[in-house]
């Protein structure tokens, strides 16, 4: 195949990727956008394969076959709640692929005194790729709740990280400075970077993983872009930088929604409960609990109900039960809306995905800024497994670790029913005065069971 045609095809692929991403800007065009993206990728692979006339394709075909089967298997068997760890896993694979490609390319060109820029790009690609790989794997293990991985923290950890980073940089520099030993230094650099990825992520709390994953996603894009500089291939550069930008912006959005800086997520710790924060025992002195029957009675006389889902709904897989409840209420002339906090759950847009899975109409989902002014006119708010995103301390207590985080102001409603299993704290580890408020009632139960019980009580009564 003529090289000009390859170049032009790659340009077409670039354009398709951009249109694919543009498709994702609207729910209506998102499916098409994603298909455009995969079409583009397919085209890129086909063009690349046809670029070489005679070659032993066995290994390549085997590789693609294995990858496809494994990818399909993972994509179709995964639970929707396990999405974060799956993304992390894929991400890690991408990173490792970058490491291998850059390493292999180095072997090919090292004897032909490659250009400085190529050597630098190779080192960058290997460094970022390696950090992405181990970082993502650790993130995966944490989210999957694998037992052998705990939040490991020890003094001097930051120093260790710094040391690993500097060592990685140093050998990257040697790759470029002493090209005759480039291969040796390259793998040494990779080794240190692998270590860096582990120790960077291992100390970060499991609940902060989504931010880490978005950031690593950005890294894997940058690694691909760096590989593009290695191969002087503009397709890799463009696709990689699109992903790099996307990951950075998502990271940024999550940090803003949690009112924390990226540095704080990566290196800081949240204050442990009871430190100088309020004491849980004091806060929870006046908690009133309720039953499914009682909640059903309240709902029967309500005219406006808002449901606020949180991470607990995902854990309990309560979305279908919630959807049934919402349908029942709507049929009985109750206005039902959902209040969606941007960081409810553990992924940006987590609640939207779950509720969409349960067929809840798009129009009923309201963003924070839209729903907040309506709580004062709301008869009953049902909080299903949310905690931090409805904690009024974020507004009232300037010393709270989550101070400044925007919240759903459910405490302004006439009655708030909170469904959760205990008084244990959410991700941020702080007590929630909402649970003891005068207008609050706790329904201690698993999210799904509680909602099913309420619905049963409604149907009976």
């Amino acid at each position, binding site marked *: 195949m003529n090289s000009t045609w390859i170049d032009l095809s790659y340009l077409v692929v670039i354009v398709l990727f951009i249109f694919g991403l543009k498709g994702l800007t609207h729910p209506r065009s998102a499916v098409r956008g994603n298909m455009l993206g995969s079409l583009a990728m397919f085209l890129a692979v086909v063009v*690349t394969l046809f670029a070489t006339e005679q070659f032993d394709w066995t290994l390549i075909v085997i590789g693609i076959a294995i990858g496809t089967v494994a990818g399909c298997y993972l994509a179709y068997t995964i639970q929707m709640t396990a999405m974060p760890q799956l993304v992390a896993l894929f991400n890690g694979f991408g990173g490792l692929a970058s490491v291998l490609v850059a390493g292999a390319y180095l072997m090919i060109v090292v004897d032909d005194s490659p250009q400085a820029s190529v050597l630098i790009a190779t080192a960058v690609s290997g460094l970022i790729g390696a950090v992405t790989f181990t970082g993502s794997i650790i993130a995966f293990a944490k989210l999957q709740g694998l037992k052998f991985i705990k939040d490991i923290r020890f003094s001097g950890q930051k120093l260790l990280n710094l040391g690993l980073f500097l060592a990685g940089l140093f050998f990257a520099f040697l790759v470029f400075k002493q090209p005759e030993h480039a291969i040796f230094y390259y793998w040494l650099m990779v080794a240190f970077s692998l270590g860096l990825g582990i120790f960077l992520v291992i100390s970060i709390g499991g609940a902060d993983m989504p931010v880490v994953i978005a950031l690593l996603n950005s890294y894997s894009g940058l690694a691909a872009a760096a590989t593009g500089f290695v191969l002087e291939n503009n*397709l890799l550069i463009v696709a990689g930088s699109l*992903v790099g930008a996307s990951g950075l912006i998502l990271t940024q959005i999550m940090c803003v929604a949690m009112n924390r800086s990226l540095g704080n997520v990566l290196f800081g710790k949240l204050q442990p409960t009871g430190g100088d924060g309020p004491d849980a025992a004091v806060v929870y002195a006046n908690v009133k609990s309720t039953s499914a029957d009682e909640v059903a009675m309240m709902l029967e006389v309500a005219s406006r109900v808002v449901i606020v889902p949180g991470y607990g709904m995902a854990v309990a897989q309560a979305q279908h039960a919630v959807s049934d409840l919402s349908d029942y209420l709507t049929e009985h002339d109750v206005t039902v809306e959902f209040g969606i906090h941007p960081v409810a759950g553990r992924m940006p847009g987590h609640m939207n995905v779950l509720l*969409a899975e349960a067929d809840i109409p798009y129009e009923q989902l309201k963003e924070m800024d839209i729903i907040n002014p309506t709580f004062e006119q709301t008869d009953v708010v049902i909080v299903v497994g949310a905690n931090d995103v409805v904690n009024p301390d974020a507004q009232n207590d300037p010393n709270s670790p989550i101070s400044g985080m925007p919240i759903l102001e459910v405490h302004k409603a006439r009655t708030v029913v909170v469904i959760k299993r205990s008084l244990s704290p959410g991700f941020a580890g702080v007590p929630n005065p909402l649970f003891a408020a005068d207008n609050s009632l706790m329904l201690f139960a698993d999210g799904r069971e509680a909602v099913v019980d309420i619905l049963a009580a409604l149907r009976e009564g």
Partner: protein
Amino acid sequence: MNLSQILILAKETQATESMTNAAGSGSHLILLITVFVLAVFIGFEIITKIPPTLHTPLMSGSNAISGITLVGALLTALAGEPFLVRIFGTLAIILATMNVVGGFLVTHRMLGMFRKKG
């Protein structure tokens, strides 16, 4: 063949020489960097328009795109004579293919949920 090469032919005139100097984008590398910078801008412009509802699909979808390393892996596997190069290349192909195929499929599954109600 690029400007600098053409102009080497025309080296006689002092005039054109100064032109080589200033024509810009003389080097391949700077063009690649330009492409990188422009693509980052496009990424920022487009991503900031994506509504929160679609952030999770965006995350997995863009993750799939980062599997573009697959093209690099193919090029390497195709190019590599040394045994190690071929092994690395094939491994990279497997990993990158999983990233690509899995990423796009899982995004499709997720988006399917949004569409059902439509």
